[in-house]
């Protein structure tokens, strides 16, 4: 009712906005929305744009010209003739991690780190690495000052909050205090707060040695030692990017599908952005069903379909009426579900993207999503 409409075009056109971040829980349409925003920013608003995508669907990646996985922006072809430049890239988290390591250490050290099985496990599988590396990449792109606008997609986490939390978790982790304790219980003695348990640490590390074998401990120790020189770097960079996200040049869009889980996540996330003083521009409600024959009530349509069944002779109309009834029901359920967000965050502007009849995997599809803006 009183919900303000989110003016996406105004955001895309605003020269003071340099970063747009699309957040939301898994599968709601973050990647699609990010790509559609980027195409619109370049074509309609003449802004030199780069879009950082994460795990785009294969055909969407192809449409954006992302056939080579080189972790750098590529020019998108097939745009309208008067469009500004649009580049797209697909995040390669392992490579981004490798780049950070290379930048912070000498080549010999870096080689050691790359060869370490713990580094290999962490750089490709550790939960939170992807979020961290997305932020890292965003920081790098921003520092290049080559674009008017950077549109950022976020990883397919189960929770939208992971995007904000994971980097801090990872840098705490890389801080390695725990790990150093584990490896050197003697050093943890003295005045440390861990004094109380240092005896069990000794026992623990003996046990760990027994269970895992000495080779593993050597690797682990090598890993910590090698990363030691880089701890500060990781933390500093994460904090720096965090500050950019809080700046007025950034606009967060929370993407949600009108489904209970997604809306619940969106409510949490909007609350969290406010608590962290991050600029929430609004909610993008994606895949909203449209009911063109809005005047026909679901129950009336269903009853009519039944009359036609009895009457015979109009099977197609009866099916269409049933399809319509389901659609109208779905619209009502979606409205009820999204009402939860609107009640929790009454002032937050909202824009709706209609559910498309088929998957979105080409520029035309992205443009047609753009028309909702």
């Amino acid at each position, binding site marked *: 009712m009183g919900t303000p409409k989110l003016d996406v075009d105004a955001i895309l056109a605003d020269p003071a906005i340099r970063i747009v971040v699309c957040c939301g829980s898994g599968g709601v349409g973050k990647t699609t929305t990010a790509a559609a925003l980027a195409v619109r920013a370049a074509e309609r608003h003449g802004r030199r744009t780069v879009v950082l995508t994460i795990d785009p669907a294969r055909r969407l990646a192809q449409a954006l010209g992302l056939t080579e996985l080189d972790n750098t922006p590529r020019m998108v072809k097939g745009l309208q003739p008067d469009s500004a430049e649009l580049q797209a890239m697909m995040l390669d988290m392992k490579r981004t991690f490798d780049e950070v390591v290379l930048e912070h250490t000498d080549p010999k050290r870096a080689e050691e780190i790359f060869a370490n099985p713990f580094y290999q496990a962490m750089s490709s599988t550790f939960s939170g690495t992807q979020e961290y590396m997305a932020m890292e990449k965003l920081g790098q792109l921003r520092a290049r000052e080559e674009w008017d606008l950077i549109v950022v997609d976020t990883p397919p986490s189960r929770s939208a909050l992971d995007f904000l939390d994971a980097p801090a978790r990872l840098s705490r982790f890389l801080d390695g205090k725990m790990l150093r304790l*584990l490896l050197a219980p003697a050093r943890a003695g003295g005045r440390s707060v861990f004094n109380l348990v240092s005896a069990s640490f000794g026992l623990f590390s003996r046990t760990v040695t027994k269970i895992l074998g000495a080779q593993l401990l050597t690797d682990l120790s090598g890993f910590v030692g090698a990363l030691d020189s880089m701890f500060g770097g990781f933390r500093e960079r994460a904090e720096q990017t965090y500050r950019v996200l809080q700046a007025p040049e950034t606009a967060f869009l929370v993407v949600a599908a009108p489904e209970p889980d997604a809306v619940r996540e969106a409510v949490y996330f909007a609350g969290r952005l406010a608590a962290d003083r991050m600029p929430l521009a609004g909610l993008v409600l994606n895949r909203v069903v449209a009911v063109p024959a809005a005047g026909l009530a679901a129950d009336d349509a269903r009853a009519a379909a039944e009359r036609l069944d009895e009457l015979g002779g109009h099977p197609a109309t009866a099916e269409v009426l049933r399809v319509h009834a389901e659609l109208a029901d779905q619209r009502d359920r979606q409205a009820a579900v999204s009402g939860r967000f609107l009640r929790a965050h009454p002032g937050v502007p909202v824009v709706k993207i209609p559910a498309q009849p088929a998957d979105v995997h080409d520029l035309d599809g992205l443009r047609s999503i753009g028309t909702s803006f």
Partner: protein
Amino acid sequence: MTTRESQDGRTGYGWPARLHVVTGKGGTGKTTVAGALALALARDGRRTLLIEVEARQGIAQLFDRDPLPYQELRIATASGGGEVRALAVDAEEALLEYLEMFYRLGVAGRALRKVGAVDFATTVAPGLRDVLLTGKIKEAVTRTVDGRRVYDAVVLDAPPTGRIGRFLNVTAETARLAKVGPIKTQSEGVAAILRSPMTAVHVVTLLEEMPVQESADAIDELTRLGIPIGTVIVNATRPPVLAGAKVTQADLRRGLTAAGLAADKETLAGLAGEAKAYQTRVAAEASLRADLQGLGRPVVELPVLPGGVTAQSLESLGDLLLTSA
């Protein structure tokens, strides 16, 4: 329900494995399907265990319960008697249990946990974490009391398609990390079960491009790893009505008039538009269905539940799983 008599081992119906691993792209319905399968396989006096490993408390949500502790608790009663127990496996707890079992590291273990060391040990080496989780699953699958198996079937609400290969392929990961020692022995035992006919990995998908693609990728990957694939479960399908039919506004006008509804221009144009969009989707779904059939695995379809998932609809999904597999 003729299946019971004809095909039934103690493991149940057309689902011969003892360990059912349910994976799929995020949000496709893994937890829902795992719950429905655990309920269905517990019918007629059987006992099943439904396990989750991702600290999501998805099972508790599905059955509308308080968060589950690290304990096997009865969570539902199946029709014809029989029970479903549930367990939320936690890597830390599993490590403590493990340390306790092999090294009697009781109190010291708890102290370690207080300072976060256990959390640390289970996260620094993702391979170690997966060994612990799958080790617990293996233990439940093979557990016997008085020479009888405790569970007729164990159903795992597994990690999503993107991580399933790595999760189930624990030996490779741990072999890199731990080259000798009990962890290695343990992970080899797990790997053997996961590659035996006792295990089946079922893949849940929607009739949408990305989940179908990820299902195909996961099946490829698991096949290469030698892990047996079970059934492809297509969730939340809609009836493919109007497929290929030509629906004109003139037809609709006659139909609406016959049904006694107003056949004004807006309604006609609106309905025609809705029909066309539905047909577009049905056509896209048909081609995805064909892709799924091409995977060479049995395919079961579950309908979209308009009212969402409830205790009752979970039961009806279970019916479909049993009768159509």
